């Protein structure tokens, strides 16, 4: 491998170096835009004690939910944890530490983490359980709480297309948390549907520049749909 070529040849190689008790930041919203094969590789490796930072934890048998049965996750930072029975069981039994975090604050924590900003003030959560133990400051007659940035030992990301240098393009609402996650990992691993040669993507249309990407792999995706809602043609 030479220069800026980020492509790795196997999922094993993609997740090499992941060990117990690490923090993983994952892109995705619901089951949309999730790095489904990287998640399967984490399950296969059997890594334990994971602190997981993600909007949701998948469903019982797909997405990040598949890391639950073998108790691989120690702690999760997420905004929404419904729709997953095993998750609820582990949370209620206090086998799993859950830090509920407002969705916008979670996105900003990742963004700030990747951008070298250690903390930021936000009005979100003022006067709620989220504010407990946090510094409160008043700006322009309004209260704000201090939220700290998040970085991960690994970030796992799903994009639509990439060139070999790791420049990424996302598709529709599968973008969601992926661009922020990509910036916030010490090692950022991206799986995509198609890898092209450098120069084939329009530089003006790249969502995430390759500087954030350490490893890149092309996969095939099931793209399961959580709520299939249709109208009559």
């Amino acid at each position, binding site marked *: 491998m030479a220069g800026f070529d980020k492509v790795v040849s196997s999922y094993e190689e993609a997740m090499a170096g992941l060990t117990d008790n690490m923090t993983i930041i994952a892109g995705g919203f619901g089951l949309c835009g999730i790095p489904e094969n990287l998640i399967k590789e984490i399950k296969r490796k059997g890594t334990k004690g994971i602190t997981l930072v993600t909007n949701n934890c998948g469903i019982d048998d797909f997405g990040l939910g598949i890391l639950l049965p073998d108790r691989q996750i120690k702690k999760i930072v997420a905004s929404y944890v419904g729709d997953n029975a095993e998750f*609820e069981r582990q949370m209620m039994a206090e086998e799993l530490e859950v830090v509920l975090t407002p969705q916008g604050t979670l996105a*900003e924590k990742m963004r700030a983490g990747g951008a070298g900003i250690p903390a930021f003030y936000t009005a979100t959560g003022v006067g*709620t359980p989220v504010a407990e133990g946090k510094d409160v400051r008043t700006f322009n007659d309004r209260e704000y709480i201090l939220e700290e940035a998040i970085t991960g030992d690994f970030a796992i990301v799903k994009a639509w297309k990439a060139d070999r240098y790791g420049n990424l393009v996302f598709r529709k609402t599968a973008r969601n948390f992926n661009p922020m996650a990509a910036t916030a990992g010490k090692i950022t691993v991206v799986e995509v549907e198609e890898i092209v040669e450098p120069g084939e993507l329009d530089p003006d249309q790249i969502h995430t520049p390759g500087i954030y990407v350490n490893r890149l792999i092309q996969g095939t995706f099931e793209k399961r*749909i959580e709520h299939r809602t*249709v*109208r009559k043609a």
Partner: protein
Amino acid sequence: MALSREQLAQRVAQELQDGYYVNLGIGIPTLVANYIPEDIEVMLQSENGLLGMGLFPTEEEIDADLINAGKQTVTMATGASLFDSASSFAMIRGGHVDLTVLGAFEVDVNGNIASYMIPGKLIKGMGGAMDLVAGADNIIVTMTHASKHGVSKLLSNCTLPLTGKGCIKKVLTDLAFIEIKDGKFYLLERAPGVSVEEIIKLTEGELIVSDNVPEMQF
């Protein structure tokens, strides 16, 4: 008669104005999209990263990469734009969304809202609700006025963990349209056929009632 889910959505839709960017929460608020008046243009924001949400797709149009904040498959309206979650909440937190409609378990006379958690029973998380109530100036809460057992959800003090503090000014229940100001509820409108007495009985927080409270018009 208490309003149906559809009537709640219809009444909220009357508050829409031409050129509004609107975020609709999960449940009843989502139904508001079905009642947007034909003579105005409204753009729906979905906090997972879409401005200009369209109809549900046909079977042929279904795209796993295109969902709304309720994780339902959707389409894009003409003139839609797509963005990441940080940008989406910059819009919300920055006060750029003209109207937010969301559900709640309880609201109180100080504009507090509880909507995301019932300790020991229901712990699903706040999703984007805390950001939405903190960021929006114009919020309509849609909810039932009281529980099935007649316990009021319009309180002097919320009992459940708060989603936001002092941020709610308008509540539409199945019985009444209510404004919150100066630490009191004000009865603006009542559902057709619902008496003022019934609303008073089912409102635990202080309720100010004028001599003539109009019925909602549909």
